[in-house]
């Protein structure tokens, strides 16, 4: 079963289409990345999934049905625009938001203490939110997002504003949640977060889906037929190689259309070259992102 099915959603503001005919599915138990430049329509898509704004057309199913009170309790949502009541204490905040998700106070307190302890914030539980640093209060927001142990967790730009320590804490938490079988959707404009964490991804640009699939698929589709080789001595001229560029102590070889990496390897071995490293160079998501977005611009 899909955790989320999004079918041809469209949302326009005036004449501007914020989200234009976007469709995707999210499998249960995976980490799904929603990427794209600022203003691409990520947050609008997520808000439509949360039924906070209604799409002009198209439909969204969450866990097989339209979003309702019951399924809302099974979702944890960390919005991009986020904040807390400044005057409330940490623990009261956790208990109040947990209660809105149907968790009673004693259980919320118990889970809250565990999560606070894990984030080293337990000593702050009786402080007011306004007394915390921005990073701390963002961790509290994450705790609120998962306090009701939701099956589906949606994180909109979760790492923005976090220091490296808290970023690592959050990444560990996300991996933990995945290991517990939870489905996680996260949006970001930072490609290395996606490469590090996500199983599948959807890239949107200017409201349209431009890339969709598993991380490996996307990368292989954008493979540029280059190989990274570290060898002892000079390589010299090799048949089928159109360009050689030094790269990280090795050489990046660009192959022509007829040559496969396998053929290159055979030729290098035949020439008697001692190879320390032979690697298909796949482009990073960043490179793909720049390429796709750049193409769109042209």
């Amino acid at each position, binding site marked *: 079963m899909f955790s989320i099915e999004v079918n041809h959603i469209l949302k326009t503001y005036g004449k501007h289409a914020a989200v234009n005919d976007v469709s995707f599915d999210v499998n249960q138990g995976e980490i799904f990345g929603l990427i794209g430049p600022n203003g691409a329509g990520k947050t609008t898509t997520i*808000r439509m999934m*949360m*039924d*906070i*704004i*209604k799409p002009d057309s198209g439909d969204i199913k969450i866990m097989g049905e339209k979003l309702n*009170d019951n399924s*809302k*309790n099974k*979702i944890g*949502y*960390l*919005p991009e*625009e*986020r*904040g*807390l*009541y*400044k005057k409330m204490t940490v623990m009261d905040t956790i208990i*109040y*938001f947990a*209660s*809105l*998700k149907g968790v009673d106070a004693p259980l919320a307190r118990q889970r809250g203490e565990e999560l606070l302890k894990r984030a080293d914030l337990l000593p702050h539980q009786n402080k007011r939110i306004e007394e915390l640093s921005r990073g701390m209060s963002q961790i509290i*927001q994450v705790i*609120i997002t998962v306090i009701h142990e939701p099956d589906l967790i949606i994180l909109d730009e979760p790492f923005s504003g976090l220091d490296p320590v808290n970023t690592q804490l959050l990444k560990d938490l996300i991996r933990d949640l995945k290991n517990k079988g939870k489905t996680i959707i996260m949006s970001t404009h930072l490609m290395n977060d996606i490469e590090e964490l996500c199983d599948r991804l959807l890239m949107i640009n200017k409201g349209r889906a431009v890339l969709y699939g598993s991380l490996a698929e996307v990368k292989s589709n954008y493979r540029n037929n280059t190989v990274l080789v570290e060898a002892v001595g000079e390589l010299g001229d090799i048949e089928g190689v159109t360009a050689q560029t030094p790269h990280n102590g090795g050489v990046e070889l660009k192959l022509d259309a007829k040559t496969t990496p396998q053929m290159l390897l055979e030729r290098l071995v035949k020439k008697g070259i001692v190879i320390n490293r032979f690697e298909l160079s796949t482009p990073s998501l960043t490179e793909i992102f720049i390429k796709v977005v750049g193409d769109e611009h042209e």
Partner: protein
Amino acid sequence: MNKTLLLIKHEFLGTVRRKAFIILTIAFPLIALLGILAGQVLPGMIKTTTTTEKVGFVDQVGIFTQNITENNIHLIPYSTEEAAKTALEQKDVTEYFIIPSDYISTGVIHIYTLTSEIAPGGTVQSAISDFLLNNLLKGNSEAVITRAKNPLNITSTTLTSGGTPASNQGGFSAFILPYIFSILLLLAIFTSSGYLLQGLGEEKENRVMEILLSSISPRQLLAGKVLGLGAAGLLQIIVWLISANFLLRMASASWGNVLGSLQITPEFLLLGIVYFILGYLLMAILMAGVGSISPTAREGQQMSVIFIMPVIIPFYFLPLILENSDSIAVRILTFIPLTAPITVMVRSGLSVIPVWELLISIGILILSVWGCFVLTTKLFRTYLLMYGKRPDLREIVRSFRAS
């Protein structure tokens, strides 16, 4: 627990724990209590002359022979003005007065004192007055003289067209209570709907809104906020009513002649509560609508004036309502939802409002509350998450149609 109930509880507790709310709720009974205590303590503090005061007089008419000593004022006759003046200079008397020969036709009395004063002291004046009357009415019976001093004790009864006494007798005391109460009503409506506006603004500024909306629907959010703060406002009104009842009983001891006849009738209480609830609901929902389209709490407060003005309008029409509480203009004010609560409160003190008028007024109010609720829910959905920009009128109308 139902999510709307949770919100109601959260908003209610959040409000009644506010310092400003507690202060305002206690302030009124406290101020009234101070007033009453002042009424009991002050008369004792005002110096009453226990020593006998001597006042001289010169009778140039020749009929004021009956000397009296009243309220510690001793009147001493002098045959000439010079003798009286000498007595004043030697401080035998504190003041003296002359009854000139043409007094009977003019009524003029000259009073001479050493200390300048705005008006002759009350006790002295009434002693002189009594002295003059006693002498003028010499020969009449004691009862006639007493009546002549106080000839008019009015009791008035308003009759219905059938000739039987009307149930609402009107008058100052019947009017003052609804008047005070309508001010309190206004205050309660404004404070709680003001908190709503402020709360929404803060939630927008704090960016809590989207987290809330991921758990609850805009409709639940609106209902929870309006009802939670309304419950706090109702609590405030109830505290005021209970303390008013208690204070009135205390007050009748010291301010008896003014407030003695004041009482809160069950009909008035019922009207007060019905109009508080409906008036508050309408105001709160309108404020929520304003809050949803204004980017900050401060801007929301500025915009809210549009709705606050009509609510106070009946106070500007007060002379009209007082003069003719059944006129067409006053009826129209009774039917307009925003002006109805205060108009009905003030009118109820003056005359009996026909039941059909009340029914229409309440009916219109209920319909407008419902209509505004539906429209505001739509506004909520569209604008709660728009930070930093305010939609223009055309966009708002479009969003009503769209959703």
